[in-house]
């Protein structure tokens, strides 16, 4: 089983102080999903990618990419990964270090297992609870029971209720079928949902004429949901700007950091297209 990498967790899963982009190709977690007496070895992967065009920060001097590191303000130097430990502030500037295995000890029965305790009708869950989504992918030997859970959840329109422990947090989750894959939706705790009663709904009910007018206006605008319909305008404009800039002197080259093989002359338009396709991962 892979060693846990707390500082590489994707942003949505970590407390603000750790935030660092997930490295491509890394599993977020691997372990077992179980329901009743069935146990399936799985790994957890991202279902969401930042759709915004992402930029890299470069060194003005040589256009070398910058990397984010942790600096010890007392020694004024960068601290290697193995010297970093997670800590909790008990009073101003006093910290208690907490190790990974101590974190695992908080919930040892759940830190490697997503145990589905019960199932619910998938449509019954109030959308206000949904937070982020991931996919589960079967590990070797888990394909058949995985396939069964995907199929049966789909046919019965049910979702599994479970908990997932990742680093310093436990997430209530729903395990859903997309028809091909198991999706894991992290949920908010009920005490994180602001009660509606903090806000006063309008005192006087609307008059029957108003009711009728609104109802008719709504009725005339009914359609089907199509998530592709509302494109990200900003993204489109940025891509147009990048295409224009490619012809100018904005194109720069970073120094070679590692030995790279010989390169054929570059087809810039093709390269831009490929990069944008990769950034967008459009369905």
């Amino acid at each position, binding site marked *: 089983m892979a060693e846990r990498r707390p500082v590489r967790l994707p942003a949505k899963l970590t407390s603000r102080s750790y935030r660092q982009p997930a490295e491509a190709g890394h599993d977020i977690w691997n372990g077992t999903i179980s329901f009743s007496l069935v146990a399936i070895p799985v790994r957890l992967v991202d279902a969401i990618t930042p759709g915004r065009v992402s930029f890299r920060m470069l060194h003005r001097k040589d256009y070398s990419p910058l990397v984010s590191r942790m600096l*010890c303000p007392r020694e004024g130097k960068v601290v290697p990964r193995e010297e970093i430990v997670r800590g909790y502030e008990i009073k101003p500037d006093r910290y208690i270090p907490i190790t990974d295995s101590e974190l695992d000890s908080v919930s040892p029965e759940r830190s490697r297992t997503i145990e589905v305790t019960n199932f619910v009708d998938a449509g019954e869950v109030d959308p206000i609870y949904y937070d982020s989504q991931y996919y589960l992918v079967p590990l070797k030997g888990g394909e058949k029971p995985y396939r069964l859970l995907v199929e049966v959840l789909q046919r019965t329109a049910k979702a599994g209720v479970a908990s997932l422990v990742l680093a310093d947090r436990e997430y209530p989750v729903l395990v859903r079928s997309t028809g091909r894959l198991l999706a894991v939706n992290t949920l908010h705790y009920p005490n994180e949902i602001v009660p509606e009663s903090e806000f006063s709904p309008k005192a006087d009910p609307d008059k029957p004429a108003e009711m009728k007018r609104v109802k008719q206006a709504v009725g005339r605008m009914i359609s089907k949901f199509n998530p592709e319909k509302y494109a990200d305008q900003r993204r489109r404009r940025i891509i147009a700007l990048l295409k224009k800039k490619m012809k100018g002197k904005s194109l720069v080259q970073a120094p070679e950091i590692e030995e790279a093989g010989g390169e054929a002359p570059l087809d810039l338009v093709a390269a831009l297209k490929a990069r944008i396709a990769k950034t967008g991962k459009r369905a």
Partner: protein
Amino acid sequence: MKLGHAIWDGNIVFASVAVPVKLHPAVREGRVQFHLLHRHDLVKLQRQMVCAYDGAMVPVEDQVRGFELEDGKYILVDPADLKRFDPEASRTIEVHEFVPARQIDPVYLEYSYYLEPGPHAEGYGALVTALSDRGLAGVCTWTMRKRSYVGALGTGGKLLRLYTLRHAGEVITAAVPKMPVAALSARELKVGADLINQMTGRFRPRQFEDKHQEQLRKLIDRKARGRTIRVRRPRHVAPTAPGRLLEVLEAGLKRVA
């Protein structure tokens, strides 16, 4: 957050309807926050951008923004160029269409807000009723904090709610790894469905008590008082052998039946 403090206000607009509303976050997170420390002296670390080439620390004024075209080749982009693309400020949540709420897959749901009725919010109650009676959600767009959003206008109780929706391009659908096709027998599917139906109940969010945070706080407290922490190893579960799947499902069904 202070009660009654809205983060944005404006009007829901469609056809000849305009309803003034105030936006409030519907989720409030309060969790144990950790910091990263230097192991030997427990000094809190700070994030620092470092040059990948020469390892030098690079101050903000020496940082430029680039789009990586391919390995090592970047297009430089001036932040002022990007600023031009900031959407114009507006006070309108424009509803473009109404769709059956259940057609919106949860993967698109990002942040949730309550819309409190603004002053003289005529039509507010009528809109709540019109949406909840027919299970509809309004697909809408608006601008807030220099960003444009696509959202779903819905109801849950007496208040209107607004969910921001992720763009289709943010949802990974292509990254499905190749999987060997495992044949399932009709019997396995039948027993599997029976088992899941037997284990089905109502959705009760109250079952999720955050005991983990409570236990985490206790652990921190014990450590702060200098007590030793007994490290418990994570439990590992033996995977179900593919050849025994039916047998295991049947045994499970017998237990819950």
